[in-house]
């Protein structure tokens, strides 16, 4: 039986039967390839990532493909989501005039990240794509490149360096310290945390759900039934909590992206 199709309740391992608890861990985030083409291993997270594309594009195609002045239900929902990102995130951070250019990017980013997160609580899929670091890293890298590009384009080479290093003569003797810290912060730590924040939240959330799910099954023996019930309730609670966290993390990811763009366009101080 291949690992990715192996589910917790397919083992007969229960408490009080001399069988150890198979705790979830890093191995739950590694999948065997579904198929291999010329050495390229196609696995479940990739499939889910591509399905996210299909879902996001499919939804917006259905909603906006034949957009009408008097909207249907689906278009209204789409407009609400679109407006949420446009006004709530982009215009808020960048203003309408500056922000309009970045609306499509931020809207795509938000819904793509959100749907990738959402797979966590969808039965069968049951895996948040963003808990594989490669996906958040890719998206954070795009934002990072955009930020660097905008900073240099807006301020020129020297201005951009000043912007990135927080150069300010009035700081006096702490200036070298500030320059080093700011440079490290902006160029290395910030993109790293941008990606890891999303990754770690989804990773931890998935681990928690897995933990309680596996435990619910493992504890299902003798007096352990009570614990199994509690564990199952926790599974439900964590699932509901994850639903919330997924949206929040998508929101935060895009909010930070907007802030970085705003920082790139702002005059340095």
């Amino acid at each position, binding site marked *: 039986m291949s690992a990715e199709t192996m589910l917790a309740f397919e083992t007969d391992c229960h408490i009080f039967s001399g069988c150890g608890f198979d705790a979830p861990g890093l191995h739950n985030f590694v999948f065997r390839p579904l198929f291999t083409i010329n050495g390229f291993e196609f696995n479940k997270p990739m499939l889910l990532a591509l399905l996210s594309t299909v879902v996001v594009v499919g939804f*917006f195609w259905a909603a906006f493909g034949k957009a009408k002045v008097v909207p249907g239900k689906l278009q209204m929902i789409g407009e609400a989501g679109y407006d949420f990102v446009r006004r709530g995130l982009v215009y808020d951070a960048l203003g309408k005039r500056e922000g309009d250019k970045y609306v499509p990017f931020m809207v*795509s980013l938000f819904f793509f990240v959100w749907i990738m997160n959402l797979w966590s609580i969808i039965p069968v899929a049951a895996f948040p794509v963003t808990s594989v670091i490669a996906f958040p890293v890719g998206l954070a890298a795009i934002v990072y490149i955009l930020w660097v590009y905008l900073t240099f384009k807006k301020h020129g080479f020297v201005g951009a360096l000043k912007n990135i290093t927080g150069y300010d003569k009035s700081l006096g003797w702490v200036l070298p310290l500030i320059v080093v810290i700011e440079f490290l912060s902006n160029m290395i730590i910030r993109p790293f945390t941008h990606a890891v924040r999303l990754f770690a939240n989804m990773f931890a959330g998935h681990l928690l759900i897995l933990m309680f799910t596996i435990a619910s099954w493992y504890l299902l023996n003798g007096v352990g039934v009570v614990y199994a019930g509690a564990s199952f309730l926790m599974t439900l609670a964590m699932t509901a909590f994850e639903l919330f966290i997924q949206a929040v993390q998508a929101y935060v990811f895009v909010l930070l992206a907007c802030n970085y763009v705003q920082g790139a366009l702002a005059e340095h101080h």
Partner: protein
Amino acid sequence: MNALVTMAAEVPENPLIPPIPELVIGLIAFFIVFGILAKKLLPNINKVLDERRKLIEGRMEEAESLQAEAQQVLADYRAQLADARHEAARLRQEAQEQGATLIAEMRTEGQRQREEIIAAGHAQIEADRKAAAQALRRDVGTLAVELSGKIVGESLEDVSRQSRTVDRFLDELEAGATKAEAGR
């Protein structure tokens, strides 16, 4: 258990090191979303949102112009009404004035006619009186002569005497009449 062991062997050392194939797939997946949304779907909805905004603005402008028109019409109507009232008042005033003039004219005319009639009546009366007086004088003279002739039995041939006698008689009569009139 065997499967888990083999899996554990495949676990990478560090979950923070991104595997390249996933990275590539992730970027491709995102850029498909971005491309389709940015090139087709969001311009689509932006156009519709713009249209909707224009439509709403257009409706509002239309409503505003209609309201302005209505107010204009109302103002015109009120002005016309005021004009009409004014005109009516003027006409009434004029009519009153004309009526007063007419009445005054009629009154003077009536006065004049009355006076004319009265004057004509007086003249007529005077003429009649004179004619009557003449006729009376003639008839009285004749009657008196005849009467006195009959009474006296003598013919008074002498015309001048006769005439004098009559005149005297008449003068006496007249004096009597005048005295009576003055005494009245």
